[in-house]
């Protein structure tokens, strides 16, 4: 019930915010994707943190162990990781094409070029 019990969550919140900040504030498209990656991974950390049971074991049934951590968040995050990498790969593919078309991956440059024509 003390601050310590939320320490994990709050650090994760800080991680998420750092990732989110990179997405919004950085003009480089690759950096945006990296930020997105950090943001998502931090959410995964949040999920996995909630699945932890103090003193529990990894959810692989073993003789003589009765307390396990919650397996459901693990399943969800397995799926979410796949979603994350899928998004990253599609985003990077777009970045490559954008670079080929504009010669830059900087948002401001691209905006400028679009306004010129």
């Amino acid at each position: 019930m003390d601050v310590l019990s939320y320490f994990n969550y709050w650090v994760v919140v800080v991680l998420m915010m750092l990732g989110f900040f990179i997405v919004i504030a950085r003009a480089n498209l690759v950096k945006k994707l990296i930020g997105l990656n950090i943001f998502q991974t931090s959410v995964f950390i949040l999920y996995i943190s909630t699945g932890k049971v103090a003193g529990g074991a990894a959810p692989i049934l073993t003789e003589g162990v009765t307390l396990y951590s919650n397996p459901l968040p693990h399943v969800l995050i397995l799926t979410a990781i796949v979603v994350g990498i899928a998004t990253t790969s599609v985003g990077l593919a777009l970045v490559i094409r954008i670079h080929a078309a504009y010669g830059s991956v900087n948002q401001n440059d691209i905006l400028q070029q679009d306004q010129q024509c």
Partner: protein
Amino acid sequence: MELLVNSVLLMLLVATAGALVVVRGLLASTMLTSVYGLLSASFFVTMDAVDVAFTEAAVGAGVSPLLLLLTVAAIGRGEPRAAGALPILAIVLVTITGALLIIGTLDMPPFGSADAPAHTHVAPRYLQLSGEEIGIPNVVTSVLASYRAFDTLGEVLVIFTAGVAVLLILATPGQRGSARPRYTPGSHSEPHTILQVVSKILIPFILLFALYVQFHGEYGPGGGFQAGVIFASGIILYGLLYGLPTVCRVVRPAVVETLAAVGVLLYGTTGLLAMLDGRPFLDYSVFAANPVLGQHIGILLVELGVGITVASVITVIYYAFANQFEMAEG
């Protein structure tokens, strides 16, 4: 002790993320991303999420930096720019979101408490009954491939979609058959002799290990997804060292593309068989009279489908990216 490891890892994560905010070069950012992935994988281990850790290590520290590297190779590292004005809007948005998140955590059950609703409502059944109902020790695999098998089908479809999307986006106009690499004779001026020799020794073991992970997933951490990533990494390693044309001759892009679809179809068909028997989609009891055996067979097939699709799609994506790099070079 656990708390110490936990805190140190979290601090390292914060430091890495902080560094990512500051660092501007793309190559350095890529490396930091990889570090972040590895650190979070380690953190997942301390949280008992071994399967997730395995996956995150393969994806966060492996595939995703690899793709970033290929992209950076194709577009150049980009010169670092001077920081612009302070992005006030971003700071405001982030602060609001952060505040909302903190508010959200306030009424949450404390970290690690065993009597949190999440641990008392649905999950106990998995832990208590999956031994009888499914009969395999790895509860995560049970939930993944049977209780929530439809989610996993969705997951396979997501990765398949990613493959389709990348091919669609990177398809070069005027080239036959989507974004496949062209078959040009090896143009690497310098052979990486040492690397090639070492990799020749290692690659068979990597592939063997992938198969181990694939079929051992019911007993320990691992499963189709991790196996697929490892298998693909073997192929990618070969490609990196011997050149794209060579690897394309060994593992033909058209075959890989077809296999990506075949994996999803294998998964889908496994589910459909139950429907033909009048039972719900993905009900594995059709495979054997003994329900536990049926579950075994079903999970095996489904994981195989996942493995095939994941390995193929990651290979396909690698091909498409590497092809862009070679085109940028040429």
